[in-house]
């Protein structure tokens, strides 16, 4: 009907709004912390803090887009981390096998959850609610209720070390080269298929923002101790997430399944297989996040990762994902995670009491979604 006029792309609009909100939060904290918040040191901390939630949120986003949910990632993170710590410190199998084992365990659990959801028709909510209990129980069983410390310095480096300044700039150069390549490819293929007015300058303008962001980011990180390794891993996972969701048939199928499962099935898509895949990917990401988490803390504790699933889901939702499926972007989830981490970090700097932090974060989550719904209705 005539009710739908031409709107500017709502996704683009939403991205601008989220950057605006983030800028506001940062400005406020910078002002209220007497200019501590936006120092290189704090920004490096902030990014390191967000890396675990960010990685989980990227996997969670894909699951949510397919109209599923995973409540178990906190427990799975704890379990994968415990497996890494146990195999490293107790079984002493060596660094690389421990890392591989942790990721493999995450993937296997994701595969199991996906299979139960897709092929046994148990709702993901139930499967992963069960998983939340089962894998938390698994952690306690494996660790015997104790905290297992890690002595291996190279393992701890995953969570605690930084890239040298030179390595940082090499990375920046590679990223910029990548951007230029993407730009050229876009222009060339647009010319080949005579698309609507894509000029070199327009593409250059579009890439100017990410390019300057990369340079500023590396410069800021290098002016403290260099790019933290967890942040590097997070950025790598984000790149994989963006690639999977926007550049592959698999990603396209996820949006179709979440948007209209029946239409997807009748279009010849194997919905079940896609769901198993997406849970397995989330599992792998959870394993990676577990390594960072365990390495940062330097030990594996029975309660490691508790409530992390809610942070991840909140990041996705703040980033514009719909729990009904079919909507959401990896970039949005990352910004959502950054907003959540900024709140944590800023409130800690301000010495806001623990309980108050929870109350504020909870309220912001609900308010963000409320505003989003309001905006959608009045768009």
């Amino acid at each position, binding site marked *: *009907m*005539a*009710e*739908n*006029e*031409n709107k500017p*792309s709502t996704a683009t609009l939403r991205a601008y709004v989220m950057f605006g909100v983030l800028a506001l939060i940062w400005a406020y904290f910078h002002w209220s912390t007497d200019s501590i918040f936006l120092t290189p040191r704090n920004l490096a901390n902030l990014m390191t803090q967000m890396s675990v939630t960010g990685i989980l949120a990227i996997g969670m986003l894909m699951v949510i887009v397919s109209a599923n949910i995973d409540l178990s990632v906190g427990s799975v993170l704890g379990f994968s981390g415990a497996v890494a710590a146990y195999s490293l410190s107790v079984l002493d199998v060596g660094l690389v096998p421990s890392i591989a084992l942790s990721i493999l365990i995450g993937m296997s659990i994701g595969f199991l959850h996906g299979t139960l959801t897709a092929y046994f028709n148990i709702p993901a909510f139930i499967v992963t609610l069960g998983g939340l209990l089962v894998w938390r129980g698994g952690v306690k069983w494996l660790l015997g209720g104790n905290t297992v410390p890690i002595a291996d310095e190279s393992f701890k480096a995953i969570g605690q070390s930084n890239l040298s300044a030179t390595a940082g700039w090499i990375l920046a150069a590679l990223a910029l080269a990548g951007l230029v390549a993407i730009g050229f490819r876009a222009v060339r*293929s*647009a010319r*080949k*298929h005579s*698309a*609507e007015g894509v000029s070199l300058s327009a593409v250059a303008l579009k890439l100017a923002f990410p390019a300057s962001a990369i340079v500023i980011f590396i410069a800021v990180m290098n002016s403290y101790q260099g790019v933290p390794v967890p942040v590097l891993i997070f950025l790598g996972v984000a790149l994989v997430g963006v690639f999977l969701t*926007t*550049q*592959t*048939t*698999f*990603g*396209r*199928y996820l*949006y*179709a399944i979440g*948007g*209209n499962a*029946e*239409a*997807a*099935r*009748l*279009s*010849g*898509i*194997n919905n079940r297989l896609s769901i198993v895949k997406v849970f397995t990917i989330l599992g792998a990401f959870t394993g990676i996040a577990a390594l960072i988490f365990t390495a940062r803390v330097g030990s594996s504790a029975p309660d490691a990762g508790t409530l992390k699933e809610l942070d991840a889901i909140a990041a996705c939702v703040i980033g514009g994902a719909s729990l009904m499926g*079919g*909507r959401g972007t990896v970039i949005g989830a990352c910004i959502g995670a950054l907003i959540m981490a900024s709140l944590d970090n800023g409130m800690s700097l301000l010495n806001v009491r623990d309980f108050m932090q929870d109350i504020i974060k909870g309220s912001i989550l609900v308010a963000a979604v409320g505003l989003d719904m309001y905006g959608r209705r009045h768009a």
Partner: protein
Amino acid sequence: MPLLEMNAIAKHFGATRALDGVTLSVDAGEFHAIVGENGAGKSTLMKVLSGVYPAGSFAGEIKIDGQQQRFRTVRDSEAAGVAIIFQELSLVPEMSVGENIFLGREPATLGVINWHKLYADASKLTRDLGLSIDPRLPINRLGIGQQQLVEIAKALSQDARILILDEPTAALTESEVETLFRILAALKTRGVGIIYISHKLNEVFQMSDRITILRDGKTVGTFDADRTSKEAVIAGMVGREVSDVFPEGASKSGDIAFECTAISAHRLGEGRKVVDEVSFNVRKGEILGIAGLMGSGRSELLMTLFGAWQGRRSGQIRVSGKPVTISSPKDAIKNGVAFVTEDRKRYGLVLDQTIKANLTLASLKRTSDGFLLNPARESAAARASMTSLRIKAPSAESIVGDLSGGNQQKVVLGKWLMTEPTVLFLDEPTRGIDVGAKQEIYAMINRLAAEGLAIVLVSSELPEVLGLSDRVLVLHNGRVAAEFNKNDATAENVMAAATANA
């Protein structure tokens, strides 16, 4: 004094004027049809009248019995005697007939429901409508036609004086339509004013006292039904003269493209066969129509052949003479079978996604490099499809949910043509789309057949089946009841076979 007057109604959404000075007047005991293409403003006008859009969100006045009305909610309009039956029924599928009729108005003392009275009243209401159903039966056990009658019973239980029906017969069989019309005629004699929105001009002329035509949010005019003609109404709706509703296709049939033998399907967990030993074939360039009443197994047959039936099934299929196994839609697509499903919003489209993403959904591998999407190639394919099907939209990146029904239907058609099929199944390809778009789809169907595609057409609109098909297969209770070639396929013959009176 007219029962209902709507004067100078105007409503806009952002910059779009949905209604622009619409005037409507309905008398007590009048059957008043509103016609117009999709997007003409019919549904918006009815939402204004029924309080879906509250007073203040539109301009103009509404009077009932000469009294100015300001509806803030649907409840206000119901209290004033306005009842609307939407295109998409608003019943709760898991609840019983009685619970649905009295939803929100349960006979209760201090919040405790008097179930005895509720079911007794529900039973009386349904019997008055000539419905013999147990009011304790859940709605999802009823057919769509019966559900519609339950909606009407619900409206009557609220002493509706103005009854609005939005495309009520879209999903009904001929006999259900007859029942509905009989009931509406009876309501007229009780003084109920009926506002009837429909694309089916035969029905409009059969039942109406007056016809109001809307176009682009404006009233073209109100006419006495017996003093105007179908041609004049169509011209008023589209703003131009429309020739031949069914263009003559050049029927040159070739080799057998698709053949199925002894196809049967059982409903999940039931012994009953919904499709019972059906066999047929279609040749290249041929349009085979499948007619039958609701529940005769038409859609179920297509679902089974497409590998999408979720119950037990059996039978053999040959495509281009080669035996194939089709146990999933993926197999079907691979073997050259495409299926434009009914109910595009439910089965056909991902409404939140772009035209491009929907068009390529069933054939994404073709425009991709394996696992990797190829955006340029995909866009080019989507644009080509939009041009050849004349899909009207700002760009291939437009969201499908924002398109009109006709354009949405073309996107579904385009999606399946992109799979380069040998045989194309069409299930209700023109339901709920306007006259202009219908004609375009008919022309496309004929063109595709002329290009050598074998087409199987299922439709509950008999004129459509008769007008397009080279041959007509009639199903009754899941079995082939009769087969007619074009010359013998008259409405009388087909209906007789479909109702097993042959």
